[in-house]
């Protein structure tokens, strides 16, 4: 009880200081350019069409302007998925879990929803440079399609080696595209494919290519993660 009181006092203090600090940041105010220096957000928005050919400014930032950062992030994701598999390998379930047959609704519904989920996920990462979305949500939507499959069919298993190979190939493609840009244009992840007409599906150079790669990588990683989490549950 005394601990709870202590924590509450601490939270009130933290909340007070956070509130006063946030009160000094105006909400909804214009981001101003100070003298010759431009706000980086304004620069990106004004130049994204001329420099990258991508219509979606967020995608251009994630894939081109901050592409190296995204490569690091994909690495973090890979490390977390691998770490999860390594930690879960420590435990081999001893208890017997009661197995229940998935309901008819789940099984029949999945038959129709699984292809829809795959198509929606592919659509989301193919159109990353035109519409909201991109590789990360697209990959996760594909993984949730596989999650439905896992739930509907207890015996279904994704080939783990195949997942690993797909994932590694996607990662290697990402780095290779970056290296081609380095050799052709002198910058890592340089846009060597040209810009095309803004707004067309085949435009924005390497942005769709990289987002397809990211989508496949995230999808296979998340599917592997879900399979690893499920596997220990499934012992006889």
């Amino acid at each position, binding site marked *: 009880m005394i601990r709870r009181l202590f924590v509450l006092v601490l939270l009130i203090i933290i909340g007070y200081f956070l509130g006063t600090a946030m009160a000094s940041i105006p909400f909804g105010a214009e981001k101003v350019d100070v003298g010759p220096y431009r706000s980086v957000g304004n620069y990106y928005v004004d130049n994204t069409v001329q420099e990258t050919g991508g219509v979606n400014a967020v995608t251009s930032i994630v894939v081109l302007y901050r592409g190296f950062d995204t490569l690091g992030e994909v690495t973090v994701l890979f490390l977390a998925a691998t770490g999860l598999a390594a930690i879960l390998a420590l435990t081999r379930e001893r208890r017997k879990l009661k197995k229940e047959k998935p309901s008819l609704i789940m099984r029949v519904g999945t038959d129709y929803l699984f292809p829809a989920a795959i198509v929606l996920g592919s659509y989301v990462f193919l159109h990353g440079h035109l519409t909201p979305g991109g590789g990360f949500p697209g990959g*996760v939507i594909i*993984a*949730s399609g596989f999650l439905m499959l896992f739930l509907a069919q207890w015996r279904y298993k994704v080939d783990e080696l195949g997942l690993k190979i797909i994932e590694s190939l996607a990662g290697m493609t990402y780095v290779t595209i970056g290296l081609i840009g380095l050799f052709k244009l002198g910058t890592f992840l340089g846009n060597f494919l040209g810009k095309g007409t803004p707004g067309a599906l085949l435009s924005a150079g390497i942005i769709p290519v990289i987002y397809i790669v990211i989508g496949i990588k995230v999808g296979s990683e*998340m599917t592997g993660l879900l399979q690893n989490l*499920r596997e220990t*549950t499934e012992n006889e």
Partner: protein
Amino acid sequence: MAPFVLYLSLALAILMIVGAIVVVVTKDLLVAVIASAVVDLVLAILFYILQAPDVAITQAAIGAGLTTAIFVVVLRKTERFEDD
């Protein structure tokens, strides 16, 4: 944003905070996980209201979908009720 949207987002923010409080007080962990999914979903709508559709899609797919599934799998492997 129009005043109507502002009042809507006030209602959504209240719903979100109520959901978070439900997570704190409940003893049933499954209820807590579902309530945290509600919080994430409302958060996705708030992102959309704040003109961030990319983030809204990501939050809806990840926060409300995948995270909830992972938590439920973990609850199945461990235990459902919180003991004091």
